């Protein structure tokens, strides 16, 4: 009989995860500002359904697995060089340019010609002045008072902690309703944590589960806020991130730091005393890793990708330790799966964003070591097959799991191989989009194939 509440709980959780996905999809359809959510270190982990996937296939969307570097471009847009860009604002200046040739710098033959030139020059300057005035009033309207309205604060803080996406103007040229589905970042971190909790052996403890989710969510809010605090000038120069609250001056850096502290302290306290100290320690470590290691490293060395993969791998480990109270093989397996997944996902994404990285001064493999970038992506696609085989060996799942997950693992490996061989935008996009649906499906399959309690050795009771 002990088996049934447990099986019921894991089935409930599978249903919950599915419901979560459905809910996110509905929210995505309703809300106008749509953007992808990020994991702890702003990894693009898209919790999307197949419908989103189709939506995405129609869009030319590239996401960066690093904060700041996402760019959503309208489709289809040819790669334009600066040659085609107009340095001046639009038509107005073009008119002025047309007028100028009328008054050529030739010596006046007669006074009449001289006067004519003067009149033309004057008219040109008058038009220019009126254009300038027009531009000036337009510019003036865009100035905003830096006064914090209390009503706006919840929305601003939601954007700061990446709970909510930024406004519709954030994506150049793309109307809001055409943007792909919203993925709330905190919800993603929380989802991977809950997957870790659900996959851990032992009876399913709902209070512990909810405390873990709350604590992890708060810790993630704090980390995201600090990340945005550090990256204001870089965010300003990237299209996706240029509408963040700190960039727009909606809140001050002091407020961002205070908010982060107010999230981190209760979050970590909740994890340490409400769940267990190990989970609390992992939470602190992850915040530290994301804000103090990954964020600065992005501009120093390509090692940031590996650090970032660890940051993404920790939430499911936290879920596992929350349920079992110890770091055992299953926790490392889950962490390993998330770690491996980051590479095909991010490396494929970063392939299309090399220009932005270069201009912004970001050290990414795709820019400095392109061959390594593709090799690592392929390597980790294959590692996923190995890890799914290790799952039943470590008593996390039954042997059904490697069998049923083999098709999707083979497919992503195939795309990884194509990316490795072709090294072009098309193959990178295919690999990226595949990774978006691969992870949720992979985790769902794991949940459905979870080892029933009788089959595995008993792990410790969850400490609460």
């Amino acid at each position, binding site marked *: 009989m002990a088996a049934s509440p447990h099986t019921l709980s894991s089935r409930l959780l599978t249903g919950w995860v599915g419901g979560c996905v459905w809910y996110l999809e509905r929210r995505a359809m309703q809300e106008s500002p749509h953007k992808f959510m990020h994991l702890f270190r702003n990894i693009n982990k898209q919790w999307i359904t197949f419908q989103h996937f189709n939506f995405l296939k129609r869009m030319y969307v590239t996401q960066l697995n690093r904060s700041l570097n996402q760019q959503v471009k309208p489709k289809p847009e040819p790669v334009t060089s600066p*040659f085609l860009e107009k340095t001046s604002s639009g038509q107005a200046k073009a008119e002025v340019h047309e007028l100028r040739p009328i008054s050529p710098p030739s010596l006046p033959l007669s006074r009449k010609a001289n006067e004519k030139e003067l009149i033309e020059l004057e008219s040109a300057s008058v038009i220019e002045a009126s254009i300038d005035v027009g531009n000036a009033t337009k510019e003036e309207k865009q*100035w905003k*008072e830096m006064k914090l309205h209390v009503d706006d604060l919840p929305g601003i803080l939601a954007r700061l902690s990446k709970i909510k996406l930024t406004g519709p103007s954030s994506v150049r040229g793309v109307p809001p309703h055409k943007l792909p589905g919203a993925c709330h970042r905190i919800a993603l971190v929380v989802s991977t944590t809950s997957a870790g909790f659900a996959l851990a052996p032992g009876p399913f403890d709902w209070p512990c589960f909810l405390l873990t989710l709350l604590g992890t969510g708060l810790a993630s809010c704090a980390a995201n806020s600090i990340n945005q605090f550090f990256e204001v000038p870089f965010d300003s*120069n990237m299209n996706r991130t240029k509408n963040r609250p700190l*960039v727009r001056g909606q809140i001050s850096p002091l407020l961002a730091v205070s908010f982060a502290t107010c999230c981190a302290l209760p979050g970590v306290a909740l994890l340490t005393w409400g769940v267990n100290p190990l989970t609390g320690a992992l939470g602190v470590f992850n915040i530290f890793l994301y804000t103090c290691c990954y964020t*600065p490293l992005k501009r120093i060395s390509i090692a940031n990708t590996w650090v970032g993969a660890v940051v993404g791998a920790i939430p499911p480990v936290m879920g596992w330790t929350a349920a079992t109270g110890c770091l055992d093989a299953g926790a490392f397996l889950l962490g390993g799966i998330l770690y491996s997944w980051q590479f095909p996902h991010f490396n494929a994404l970063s392939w299309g964003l090399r220009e932005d990285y270069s201009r912004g001064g970001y050290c990414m493999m795709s*820019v400095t070591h392109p061959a390594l970038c593709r090799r690592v992506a392929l390597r980790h696609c294959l590692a996923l097959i190995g890890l799914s085989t290790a799952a039943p060996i470590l008593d996390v799942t039954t042997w059904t799991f490697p069998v049923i997950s083999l098709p999707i693992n083979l497919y992503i490996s195939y795309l990884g191989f194509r990316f490795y061989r072709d090294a072009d935008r098309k193959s990178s996009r295919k690999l990226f989009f595949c990774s978006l649906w691969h992870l949720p499906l992979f985790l769902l399959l794991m949940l459905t194939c979870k080892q029933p309690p009788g089959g595995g050795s008993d792990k410790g009771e969850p400490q609460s």
Partner: protein
Amino acid sequence: MASLRSGRRTVVSHLCRAFTGPGSHLAPERGAPRRDAAPSRVSRFCPPRKSCYDWIGPPDKCSNLRPVHFYIPENESPLEQKLRELRQETQEWNQQFWANQNLTFRKEKEEFIHSRLKAKGLGLRAESGQKATLNAEEMADFYKEFLSKNFQKHMYYNRDWYKRNFAITYFMGKVALEKIWNKLRLKQKKTIN
């Protein structure tokens, strides 16, 4: 580079002044009902007189950073003045760096495209009349080169930016505490009276 080095010296001297005590500072403007520390780049914007907040503008065309008009209150304390000057100076330094960065990037990118097209024997214009471009794989060489060439510059910038950001936030905290303290003192005086 020279401007960055001098910028760093200014930061260091600024921070030293901030920590040791009030040094020389600009005499506050008097007379106008609203006083402003306007961004030094050309901006014809003037905030309304009755507003006592900072104003933030649209992103600059070159640097993509948003300029801020700092409000100077009537009874600005030395600490508030230090904070404002630090923010003003950081803003200018940031604007300069990013404007330079973006312009240099664009210029070098054009030169690269130019030289590659020449090497290929192609003209600058495609058949359609538009300017010719290179594909992403060809541009990748340029991006790699640009990044490695400017690595040191980016390192110095990062270090300075982090220092300034922390200093500004620290002073904001101090100013906030000072304001709270003054308010409490005022309340205390009122209750005594």
